[in-house]
Structures are given as C-alpha cells and as structure tokens.
C-alpha cells in the first residue's frame, strides 16, 4: 500500500479520563484506504524532549468525513503533548503503515484487548461486521476506569469485560472470563492486542484449543516503515520488522 505524509487537522479531542483521549483527525483531501491493524507515525510538535515520531494504532476511520480516530494513552511527554492537541491544530502523520489483520478462519471470532491495545480492535470489529461476521469483544483493564470507549464497541457487537480489581465485569484477567474458561470454547479465531504477557497467554490458549490467533505487537520503532530495523520481532524466519512484516502476526509464527 502506498504510504503518505500529510498534515491532518485536529477536529476533535475527546478526553475519556485522566490518561486517555481520542483524537479525531481530518485529511486535507480524500483519505486513502486504511486497513484494520494499520498504524500511523505521529510527529509530536512542541515537545522538546522527544525526538522521534510516535507510532499509534488507527482506532477508527470514517470515509464520509475523511477522518480517522486515534486512541492515545498518555504515557510520556510525546503522548501527553498529543493529549493537549486542540480542534484546529495540525498533526503531521506518516500513514498508513504496517500490514493488517486478515479475515478469520471461521465465523466465531473473539477480539481481545487490554489497556491501550483495544485501539485497533474497533476498526477491526467494524470491518468484520461489514464482512458479515459478528464481532465479540473481550476487553480487560485494571479497573472500571480503564474500560474506555465501551459505547463504540457495544455498537458493533457483544462486549465482555474483565477488571483486575473486580470493579466491573469478571474479576481477573481476560483469560479468566467464562467465555474462555470452558473445555470447548466457541471460538474459531482470536484477534488480540495489548500487553505482551496477555497476548502470550492467549497464544498458548489458542494453541491448546486449536484456535487461530492473530496478535498485534507494539515494539519500539524509530521510523515505522522498514528503514531502521529497530522494531524486530523474533519469528520462525528470524528477525522481522514489526512495522512492515507486522504489526499483526500469526501467533504461531512468533518465537514465544
């Protein structure tokens, strides 16, 4: 897919809580096609201690308004600066980057996200629904506050939740949810993005039950388009760039 570099206009900054915002960014012309699982590299202006762009998942796309949404968790100076962007500001992106989630093996899909890793699952859910596949989401967080953007997910399909402190949904990690705790899970395909320990547990679970599993990695990157070779994942074929060969990998391809 052709890559672009453009100034987008911030049309909305929706603050979800003390650490998450959703930025709505408008393309100056016609937004090119973008696939679920792809990401953008955001140039962070006016953040003196940052140097590189920040890779951020594409959370949602609206072709009618030529806009995309980025779900941003404020973890350092760069993402905090992004959280301060206001409607009318510009935001320079290199996009769309990376491969994408591919169509499921079977119709019973479960999209499992943890923390900020829920970001690409919304666009994936929308895409699956358009393909006639009903997405089911399993979203985990530390506590109720961390379960964000739930309405958007609920508009697409069934949503299960877990929290570590039990403040909402099933208490524990995603793997402890009843939908997973059965000898015969009704799942043909898992898609997951989130903390690596969570994805590793899911990959193991999928292997045990003969379920296909696609994982989206968020390795540290310098460029995002295959030039620096910094973001490598260890695969059955050696080191592969998360930015160009991924970020989505079949879980059995990774040396986990």
């Amino acid at each position: 897919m052709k890559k672009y570099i453009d100034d987008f206009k911030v049309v909305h900054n929706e603050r979800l809580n003390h650490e998450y915002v959703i930025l709505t960014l408008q393309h100056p012309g016609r937004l090119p096609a973008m696939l679920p699982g792809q990401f953008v590299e955001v140039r962070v202006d006016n953040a003196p201690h940052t140097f590189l762009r920040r890779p951020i998942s594409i959370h949602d796309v609206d072709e009618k308004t030529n806009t995309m949404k980025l779900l941003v968790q404020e973890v350092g100076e760069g993402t905090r600066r992004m959280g301060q962007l206001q409607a009318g500001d510009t935001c320079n992106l290199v996009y769309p980057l990376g491969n994408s989630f591919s169509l499921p093996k079977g119709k019973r899909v479960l999209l499992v996200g943890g923390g900020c890793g829920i970001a690409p699952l919304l666009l994936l859910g929308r895409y699956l629904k358009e393909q006639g596949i009903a997405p089911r989401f399993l979203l985990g967080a530390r506590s109720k506050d961390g379960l964000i953007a739930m309405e958007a997910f609920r508009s697409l399909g069934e949503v299960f939740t877990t929290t570590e402190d039990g403040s909402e949904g099933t208490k524990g990690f995603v793997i402890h949810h009843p939908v997973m705790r059965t000898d015969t899970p009704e799942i043909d395909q898992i898609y997951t993005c989130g903390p690596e320990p969570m994805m590793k547990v899911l990959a193991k679970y999928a292997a045990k039950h003969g379920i296909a599993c696609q994982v989206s990695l968020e390795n540290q990157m310098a460029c995002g388009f295959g030039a620096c070779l910094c973001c490598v994942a260890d695969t059955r074929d050696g080191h592969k760039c998360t930015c160009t060969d991924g970020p989505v990998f079949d879980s059995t391809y990774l040396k986990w």
Partner: protein
Amino acid sequence: MVDLTIDLNGLQLKNPVMTASGTFGYGEEFMDFFDISRLGGVLVKGTTLEHREGNAYPRMAETPRGMLNAVGLQNKGVRYFAEHIYPRIKDYQTNMLVNVSGSTIEDYVQTAEVVNELDKIPGIELNISCPNVKEGGMAFGTSCPSAMAVVEAVRKVYKKHLMVKLSPNVTNIAEIGAAVEGAGADSISLINTLLGMAIDAKSRRPLLSTVTGGLSGAAVKPVALRMVWQVAQAVKVPVVGMGGIMTATDAIEFMLAGASAIQVGTANFIDPCVTAKIVDGLENYCAEQGVEKITDLVGALEL
C-alpha cells in the same frame, strides 16, 4: 541557476546530499515519499559476507535530541544482495553505494569483491566503525595500523570509488583519517555513531539488549562538525560529513567545515522527505548568498 554538482574524487554527484547507511534501507522504502533520483547518492544498508540476524530486541532508545541504536548489521549477506536486491535498485538514477562491513579483513575483501562485479554500483563505503557488533567493525577503525590494514586489503581488490567511514570513538580522528588516505581511500566519510548508553531508572536495567549502542541525531552534531573540520584539514581526499544533519543549514555548516558532500541519517526517520528538502534548501541558500557553485562553500569557514 546554482551549480550543485560535486566531483567526489571521480564519483560524480548531482548534488552533495546522500543518505547514511542504515537509515534509508535500499532506497525503496522511501519511493512513496519522494523521487530518490533527486539525491546525490544513497548508501544502502550495511552489508556483510554472510547473513546476519543482528542483535536482540530492544535495539533502540530515544534520548534527548537523538537516539541510540544497536541493530548490529542485520542483513541477508552480500550474495543475497547481489542476486535479489541489486536487480531491483540498479537502475535508480542516483549513485547507489554499498556500505560494506565485516568481522575479519578477509570478510571485507570477499564482500568488496562481490560488489566490485556489480556494474551499476559505482562505489562502496567501508564501514570500519560500527559500534554494535562484537567483532570487527569499530575495532578496525580505532587504531591506525588496523584501519590501514583493512583499507589496503580492500583497495587491492576493489577498483571503483572507495569511501571509508570513520568511527568517532577515537582519541585523534585526524590521525585515522590520514592513515586511511595513505592506505588508498578515495574519500572519507564521518562520523559513525558515538558509543552511548541509556538506563531505565525504574527497572534499573539498560534500555538496549546490548547495554551500549550508537548515538545519532541532532545531539551529536557539534561533535561531528568538529571531527569533520579536523579530518578535512588533515587529508587531501574529499570528506563526506554526517552526524545530526536535520536541515539544509546543518548541511551547509558541514560543508563550510570542509565536507565536499554530506549524508543525512536519523532525520530520515522523522521526516522521510527531509533529504529532498535539504537539496532545495542548499539551492536556496546559494541563490540568496550569490554562490554560483556549491563547491565554493567547501572549507569556506572564515576563522
């Protein structure tokens, strides 16, 4: 119309702007962003005799105005390059130079021999300065006798333009520059990355799998500029300057310090079009300053 052309000791460049090895892939990665035939040259990813997997992840850490990397020369080996990559890139309308690295002198020689047979590769850049591999690399570039030995050995088998890339991790870079000139280098490029380190105070662990790595980006520019200036005064062959160049003004500073051409590295990650902007910026600077030939800027520092 400003004359931007450079004669780099026989290697003809349409302008002084090249891309630094390891920051520009094989050029292909940037084709969506701009026409790379606008560049004076492209230094392709560090190439070794055999396939290398490079170092373990994590290989990168952002630092103030820069970054550390510890990629460790990941590449598929020179034969793979010759068979599979060269046919794809050979017709790009710019100088495609191969950066050659190795663990032993014999590695360098054999790699250079393979590249010597590739008609449309007009030169190599001998990397005696990679800080991220255990053997070879920087070890060759940090003493005069070893630097001379590898350059002399490659000079015997390599017939086209031989650029030698120096390590800044030395006490006296002018000495090393003079040594590789004496050993047969056609041009000298510098600087490779500065050996550095980053620590996560919370976990008390290093941020790189290799503990230490190579520092690049805007942060290193003053060091690079000083070293280019020192080497340019110590040698007669042309010097190719790099280290933290982010803008056309940075590039001009390197030329004033004595660089005949420049390479842009880490800036490519932040703005993939930056090299095209630097070409435009050089032309504008010359036009504004009444400079007819850009070569008039080389070493024009007024003391």
